């Protein structure tokens, strides 16, 4: 059995890639603020949360290195997210229909 430490370095992400993601995040922030000024009625919350989800995906994927980790990390995050989603949905089933 090989005595193999799992401490070889993580994938190195270059500065340029980080800056590009940051520019994307700033753009999405601008879009969110701009959209809030338009009367989209009930759709404002969906679009705002949708954009927030995209921003989070950028942070999770690149800044937090999920894209470069072993797949099991993404699986864990997905399980956590789905768990939270279930909490939301079940709570709303209660409030929306009683």
């Amino acid at each position, binding site marked *: *059995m090989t*005595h193999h*430490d*799992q*401490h070889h*370095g*993580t994938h*190195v*992400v*270059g*500065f340029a890639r*980080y*800056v590009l*993601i*940051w520019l994307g*995040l*700033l753009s999405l*922030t601008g879009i*969110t*603020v701009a959209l*809030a*000024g338009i*009367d989209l009625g009930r759709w*404002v*919350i969906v679009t*705002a*949360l949708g*954009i*927030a989800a995209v*921003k*989070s995906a950028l*942070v*999770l994927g*690149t*800044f*937090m*290195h999920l894209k470069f*980790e*072993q797949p*099991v*990390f993404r699986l*864990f*995050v997905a399980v*956590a*997210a789905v*768990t*939270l989603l279930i*909490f*939301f949905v079940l*709570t*709303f089933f209660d*409030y*929306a229909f009683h």
Partner: protein
Amino acid sequence: MSTGTLHAAPHAAHRDDVGSRMGMWLFLFTELILFGGLFIVYAVYRFQHPDGFRLGAVELDTLVGTVNTIILLTSSLTVAMSITALQQGRKHLSLALIGTTILFALAFLVNKYFEWGHKFELGLYPGSPQLTSRPQGEILYFGLYYVMTGLHALHVIIGMAVLAFVMVFVARGSVNKDSYVKLEAGGLYWHLVDIIWIFLFPLFYLIH
């Protein structure tokens, strides 16, 4: 594994950086559920009091909220870059970037301090006569505003402390080009603080 070999006192005989990062992620999931629970409370009360929430949101300053969002997004950039810098052996650049992250965090807190202070001056704090005389929806909105941004600000402070510790380790050399998982873990915590704000911002500041 070699047997019968005399080893000198082993230092870091077995390191598992992947395991360390996984451990940090597991902790972040508990934070996700903590704030997630509060977001559920927000969702239900907003669903039940849409007008009250809209009226409450009018009192918040969108510009300050936007500036704070930009501050946190940029602080995530700097802490992420600090890891690359350290991986490249550029210790002083890494220290400068971690320090910048901490300064951004401080700027965020200063903004929050003035924001809250202004609300208090207007008499808009939990239990105040001005607030309790308003419709239930607005009372709930402000209650959630203070609890959620307050808990978030507490996490910003904790994050600053964590990053300050890591900065000391980097300066001393115990976190370095060949061993930087502590910096990665600190960064992960910081990014979560950023993600929470990414959701807080539209939900509190951008209801129209």
